């Protein structure tokens, strides 16, 4: 595809024109792609009075951060961020730990069951969540829990309930990726550990886990983003508005700020900030998480 791999001298002029056209196209598409975000940002920086007076398609007379500040306070975003952390961080940690343990166990058990379980876990992740939400809703309302864990005695309307469903739902994908990844690790490592007299758990903790670090980092990044961005589970399994993680809370916040769409834009952008930061900082892991294993071998 690239001109440079062609044998023989490439025609320089043809390349340049081709390249220029390519870049022109890509730049245009990039601008189109960035535009909705830029527009949201622009609106978020404008006071509503400015937009109303001059119409939204006008040069802004003032730009300030008032919408962000007011939005943050009125929407109590700090509180919602906290809610989100309460859900996301345990969920990511638990799912990574559980998945790596299971993946490890599955790589040691080389029977048909291994494959069956793998298929079961993977398929569980591919299901549209709406297929299971109704019985899940009733299950969550019925399953009795000790009050020490849940003050209303149920999984419904509890952080634990949301963390649980995230873990179970994401498990499939993580187990799948990790077990493939682990399979690519040299068998000799396991042998060596065994010869050294290490127990299974020791092998896992000291040998396999460190080697899986890149995969875990990748999955962790991905899972953080995914669980943070979840809208559905918390929308239906948490009923107290103030308990919702921030993305699911957007539904209510949208109603709260119906009078001022610029503040709403600011709030939406603030909601998006953590994932954008994670993406920018951990891009590499992100992309790797999606494409794990494909370049190995």
């Amino acid at each position, binding site marked *: 595809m690239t001109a440079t791999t062609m044998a023989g001298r490439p025609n320089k002029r043809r390349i340049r024109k081709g390249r220029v056209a390519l870049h022109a196209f890509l730049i245009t598409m990039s601008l189109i*792609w960035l535009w909705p975000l830029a527009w*949201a940002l622009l609106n978020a920086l404008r006071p509503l009075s400015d937009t109303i007076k001059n119409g939204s398609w006008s040069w802004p007379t003032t730009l300030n951060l008032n919408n962000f500040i007011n939005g943050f306070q009125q929407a109590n975003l700090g509180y919602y961020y906290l809610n989100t952390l309460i859900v996301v961080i345990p969920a990511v940690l638990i799912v990574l730990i559980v998945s790596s343990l299971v993946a490890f166990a599955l790589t040691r058990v080389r029977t048909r069951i291994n*494959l069956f379980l793998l298929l079961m876990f993977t398929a569980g992740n591919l299901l549209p969540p709406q297929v299971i939400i109704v019985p899940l809703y009733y299950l969550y309302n019925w399953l009795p829990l000790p009050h020490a864990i849940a003050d209303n005695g149920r999984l419904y309307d509890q952080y634990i309930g949301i963390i649980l469903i995230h873990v179970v739902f994401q498990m499939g994908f993580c187990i799948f990726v990790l077990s493939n990844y682990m399979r690519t690790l040299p068998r000799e490592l396991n042998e060596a550990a065994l010869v050294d007299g290490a127990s299974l758990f020791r092998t896992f903790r000291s040998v396999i886990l460190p080697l899986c670090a890149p995969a875990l980092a990748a999955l962790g990044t991905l899972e953080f983003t995914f669980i943070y961005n979840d809208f559905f589970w918390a929308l239906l399994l948490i009923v107290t508005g103030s308990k919702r993680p921030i993305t699911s809370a957007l539904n209510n916040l949208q109603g709260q700020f119906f009078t001022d769409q610029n503040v709403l834009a600011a709030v939406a952008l603030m909601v998006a900030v953590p994932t954008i930061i994670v993406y920018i900082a951990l891009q590499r892991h992100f992309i790797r998480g999606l494409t794990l294993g494909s370049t190995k071998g």
Partner: protein
Amino acid sequence: MPDPQVLSLAPAPAPTGAGVVASGSGKKRRYSLLTRRDKIVLLVIVGIPVFLDVVFIWGPTLASILFSFTNWQGYGGITAQNFVGVQNYTFLLTQYTLFWPALIHNLMWLGFFVFIASPIGIFFAVLLDREIRGSRFYQNVFYFPVVLSLAVVGIIWELQYAPDGFIDSALGLTKQTNAIDWLGNPSLNIWAVLVAASWRHVGYIMVLYLAGLKSVDPTLREAAAIDGASDVQTFFRVIFPVMAPINVVIVVVTVIESLRAFDLAYIINQGTNGLELLSILITNNSISEASLVGRGSAIAVILLVISLVPITLYLTRVMRSTGE
């Protein structure tokens, strides 16, 4: 909800160095090295997640199927009286005014993704596969909507589509002069939402495909070049067939994403008036004051059956690539 990570490209060619294969051939003797304690530990480690998976995913799936044959509304237990056979299904398919629009919208979503959004993603991937300056930048631009929640995407695009939003203002249409109500007009809003959804979907597909392209053996390309093939020919005749595993992943991802569509339509108008979708129909029927659990479950089962197609496709591939 939409899983950017639903599928990885991992199952592609079995990794070479490891020689690890899922069948039991010839490895049995290694297992005698597992102590009894180890075996119990393994059982617990695998058993608990399996148990959770069964209780919270597969159990509810079966329950959905069961509920769909009842007219249960959640009050009290399910009795024999509640079982009504296929009544819910006949009602949905023949009489429910909102069902067919929902199904059609899901199919439109699928079609739009399959014929427009995914190909654009693939196209971008192909373009960016070259060593050009700024490739990283372009990738970031196209990919970054994927890291946004669909709820945020919905709000961002509402600013575009509102009667006083960007599109109408730029076209000079105001409320008095017949602004186009992109999100309120039932004939238009599904398309508006599809554009917003594609804004996100394209980047996702692009990254998946790009990774696949990078793993294609360069010698193939060189051979094609030597044979005098043009770029287009090289792609369609050489690259594309070799990417078969990735192509399957793309197809499966595309289909699954279009069946799962929920967030965007919900945040815009809660899935009404032109944005009906099977997923939202389920929750509006079942997890609502109406509490028509049986009917909602029937819709869920229909969604399940449709989903089984891509799921089976993917699982078959997984099975094959793990050497069974």
